[in-house]
């Protein structure tokens, strides 16, 4: 056998084994939001898990923003290529309603807290759907330019006060949040908001309040817009997700401060799509990625509160900046004096209707 033949055979053997090796490693496709958020998951969940399980390769797909529609289409086509999806709670509920995601037995499928508290007790009221595994608590709240206001903004109603705080505001182009804030500042008792908003008079009242600042509003559709508008000085104050503002303040050192008053809590978490080809592996991964330590680890990378009660005491310092993370968490007692939790049941019923009213109002 000559040298050429020998090397050819060696190459063939290597290629064959290479392929076998590849086929043995399982790819898990995890859909999330990309950017800093996926990075925090990569650091806190994916990397340590892949280290422990060399046979698993986790592939990040950044299409969470359109995941609900895409999953529906995949399901219709009968070819689900995703294994795990990160969604906001409302979408998790909707996918569960449509039967597109697996029902989870939280106590059986997830790890208990270190002290033995069952997972369902540890997550408590945050398990808003039987298909949904909460991961983080985030809030939609305001940031304002400290150099463009005469005094610090402390109340949500300052957003509606264009006399004391002239300049543009950026608000989400959606009835969610804006209508609740409008009613609070129109004098509705916070515990009565959804009773009022459920009536057509209440909806008109909220829109009438928003009308007072309509000409001063820049409407955003993507979470990154408000930080950009604030940085450019286009707006004085704007709403967005608190993690985005944290980055502006702590990492980019912009002259921006938080206005935590009546921040609106929402949840983000996992759902397992029906039709995944790797269900056993995904469930094994989930048990790891949603345990007490992992959820606490994520908060080293991004300022969102861990969904488990048992994770809260473990929240430490930022992994690269070295600053204490607790004061930047939306759930910190100092920040959470006045809060609203997104009313999922209400919005599931009324979102279509209020969204139509909101859009008609925008077009007026």
């Amino acid at each position: 056998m000559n040298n050429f033949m020998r090397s050819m055979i060696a190459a063939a053997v290597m290629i064959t084994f290479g392929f076998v090796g590849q086929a043995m490693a399982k790819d898990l496709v995890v859909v999330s939001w990309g950017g800093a958020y996926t990075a925090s998951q990569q650091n806190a969940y994916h990397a340590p898990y892949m280290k422990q399980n060399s046979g698993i390769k986790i592939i990040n797909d950044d299409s969470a923003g359109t995941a609900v529609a895409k999953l529906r289409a995949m399901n219709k086509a009968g070819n689900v290529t995703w294994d795990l999806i990160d969604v906001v709670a409302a979408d998790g509920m909707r996918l569960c309603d449509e039967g597109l995601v697996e029902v989870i037995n939280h106590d059986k499928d997830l790890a208990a807290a270190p002290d033995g508290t069952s997972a369902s007790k540890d997550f408590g009221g945050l398990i808003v759907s039987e298909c949904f595994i909460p991961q983080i608590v985030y809030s939609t709240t305001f940031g304002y330019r400290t150099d463009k206001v005469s005094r610090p903004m402390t109340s949500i109603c300052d957003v509606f006060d264009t006399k004391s705080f002239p300049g543009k505001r950026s608000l989400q182009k959606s009835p969610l949040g804006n209508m609740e804030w409008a009613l609070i500042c129109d004098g509705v008792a916070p515990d009565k908001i959804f009773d009022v908003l459920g009536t057509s008079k209440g909806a008109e009242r909220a829109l009438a309040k928003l009308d007072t600042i309509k000409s001063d509003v820049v409407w955003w559709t993507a979470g990154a817009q408000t930080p950009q508008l604030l940085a450019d000085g286009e707006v004085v104050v704007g709403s967005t997700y608190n993690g985005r503002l944290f980055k502006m303040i702590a990492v980019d050192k912009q002259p921006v401060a938080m206005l935590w008053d009546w921040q609106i809590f929402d949840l983000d978490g996992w759902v397992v799509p029906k039709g995944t080809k790797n269900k056993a592996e995904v469930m094994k991964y989930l048990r790891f990625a949603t345990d007490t330590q992992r959820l606490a680890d994520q908060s080293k990378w991004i300022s969102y509160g861990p969904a488990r009660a048992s994770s809260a005491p473990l929240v430490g310092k930022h992994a690269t900046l070295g600053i204490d993370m607790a004061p930047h968490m939306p759930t910190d007692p100092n920040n959470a004096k006045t809060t609203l939790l997104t009313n999922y049941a209400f919005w599931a019923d009324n979102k279509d209707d209020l969204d139509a009213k909101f859009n008609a109002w925008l077009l007026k």
Partner: protein
Amino acid sequence: MEKVQEKISLVTADGTPLKISLARAQRRSKTIAFMMVFPLLFFVTIAFIVPIADMLLFSIDNSIVKKILPKTTEALKDWSEYSGELPDEVVFAAMVEEIKSAKASRQHTKIGGRLNYESSGFSSLFRKAGRKVKKIKTPPFKEALIESDKRWGDIYTWQVIKQNSSEYTEGYYLSALDFKRKFESGKIESLPEKDSIYLKLFFRTLLISSLIVFLTLLIGFPLSYMLSIVSTRTSNILIIFVLLPFWTSLLVRTTSWIALLQQEGVINDFLIFLGIINEDGRLAMIHNATGTVIAMTHILLPFMILPLFSVMKTIPKSYVRAAISLGAHPWKAFWKIYFPNTSPGIGAGSILVFILAIGYYITPALVGGVSGTFISNRIAYHISNSLNWGLGSAIGVILLGIVLLFFVFYDRIVGINNMKLG
């Protein structure tokens, strides 16, 4: 005549008449031609026509209620919805039974979601019913179901269910044209002006798109003319300047317009530097219709220039020279001789820009604010956010209809064969 023809009828070497042999050969070449086109035809059908047709069916599909509640919808047929009385026990018994079996296969929330598009509150009604029905074991079901949630005692609830129990619905089209069905009476009413959304957006989309066509023509015509008269080498370089932005990502171009046009942006700063405006008079050129028009005119300009350029290049310069030498004023020579010759390019460019413009949604969403968003932004919202695919498809079908209408209109006036795309 016949005889003559028969006499001179030619045959091929094997004795078959030439006519037949020729037809055979032609048939063969036609088959080969078809076979060569077939893969493309197959691909277009599978990847384009079928999915579109399938998506369009969403706009009338209403099978879900009937599929999950077959007995209830059947029993409801005997109930007169305007009688002012609740349906009888049979209907309630069927409903309880079917919610139970739907709950087992997790289908009850699907109906809730579907009916919630028609009337707010059905989502929670069915979710709650799914939790409560397992306790209802013995008749009378009517009282038990109403006790679980008093909304089951509203005639309105049953009117909505009954009027949505047929296989197909026109409801999505009604919503897409700002009409609403009053379930209490079954009458169709148009929404008051203050609640109307879609008609306003359709109208605005057409208006702004027409404006964009006009502006791209206004800018593109002289530019294409210049490209067509300079030397080939210069025009090649200049055409790169036209194509360069064309090759740049749409998002990059859109966001750079934000940096230029915003109130604290480059243009406003420059105008203040020149003293044309003062600090308080900063112009609002973005997050409104102006922003959409400017950004989209820029983005769609190459689609106007390229067809115009390719047409103008083929117009012999001697035409205009001849007209002028025969005594025509240069303007008249341009208007009577040159301009009519460019019409295939104008037609192609305009229809291309127009059709692209009315379907745009990323740019309007980013720079359009409230007054500069298009109907396609609502389609995107319904497809990916509200998940009301029925309504999204209905708006899409209407938009498709408008495009086809314009196409027919164009064919009548200019003639589609006259179009030159490059």
